[in-house]
């Protein structure tokens, strides 16, 4: 491999936290063991990616998708991960959907306000940054909108 896996490490703090939560109270981990686990996690991701990519190529797709990864888990004999991963995926999809709907709703609200502002709009025609004008009037409601 040209790329060295150890250059693509995952953050130590997060790895340590995951380990500590997996182990009983009072159990410690040596620095060497922790960094070895961190490297192992990187190798795991690389290996899983490679396996998943095989499934994508079999399906004549160029983009890795979730089911490729799940198939890779089974291939790597980590079937026990499949169920929790499927649950996590569903939760993730719900959250993404919720985020999308929330931002679409905000867009709708923004458009409504823009329409009512049309009378005052004398300067700019295509005004993407509505915050500047609205800031003076409806600052409270528009506070969340950060573009």
């Amino acid at each position, binding site marked *: 491999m040209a790329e060295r896996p150890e250059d693509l490490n995952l*953050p130590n703090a997060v790895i340590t*936290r*995951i380990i500590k939560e997996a182990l009983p109270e009072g159990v410690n981990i040596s620095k060497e063991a922790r960094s070895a686990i961190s490297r192992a996690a990187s190798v795991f991701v690389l290996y899983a990616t490679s396996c998943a990519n095989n499934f994508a190529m079999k399906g004549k797709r160029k983009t890795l998708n979730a089911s490729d*990864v799940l198939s890779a888990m089974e291939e790597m004999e980590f079937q026990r991960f499949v169920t*929790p991963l499927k649950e996590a995926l569903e939760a993730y999809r719900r959250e993404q959907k919720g985020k999308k709907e929330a931002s679409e709703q905000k867009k709708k609200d923004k458009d409504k306000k823009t329409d009512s502002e049309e009378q005052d709009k004398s300067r700019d025609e295509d005004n993407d940054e509505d915050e500047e004008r609205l800031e003076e009037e409806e600052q409270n409601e528009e506070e969340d909108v950060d573009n």
Partner: protein
Amino acid sequence: MAAAVAAAAGSGPAREEDSSAGEAAAPQPQAPTSTPGARLSRLPLARVKALVKADPDVTLAGQEAIFILARAAELFVETIAKDAYCCAQQGKRKTLQRRDLDNAIEAVDEFAFLEGTLD
């Protein structure tokens, strides 16, 4: 409760990641959820994505795929830590050592792909 305080205090001095990039300070770029059960991913998706892109055969990876890989990596860390702990327990030690990890890798078939990669 004393144990929780001790654990919290114990995690303080263990922080040796000052030398690592600033990303260690921001492990959760995704919107944090308040309910613990809904905590989706602790590993930063950007880092996982970097690992995925390191594979020359991979063209593109969807966001869901990256997310599942991150979650799978977390599960993997939990699994290997627990398996390594079994070895330490047999030695009646309370600190996980590197050799516990090596033993686990040799003992568990699923970890065979790790052999020779951690040195």
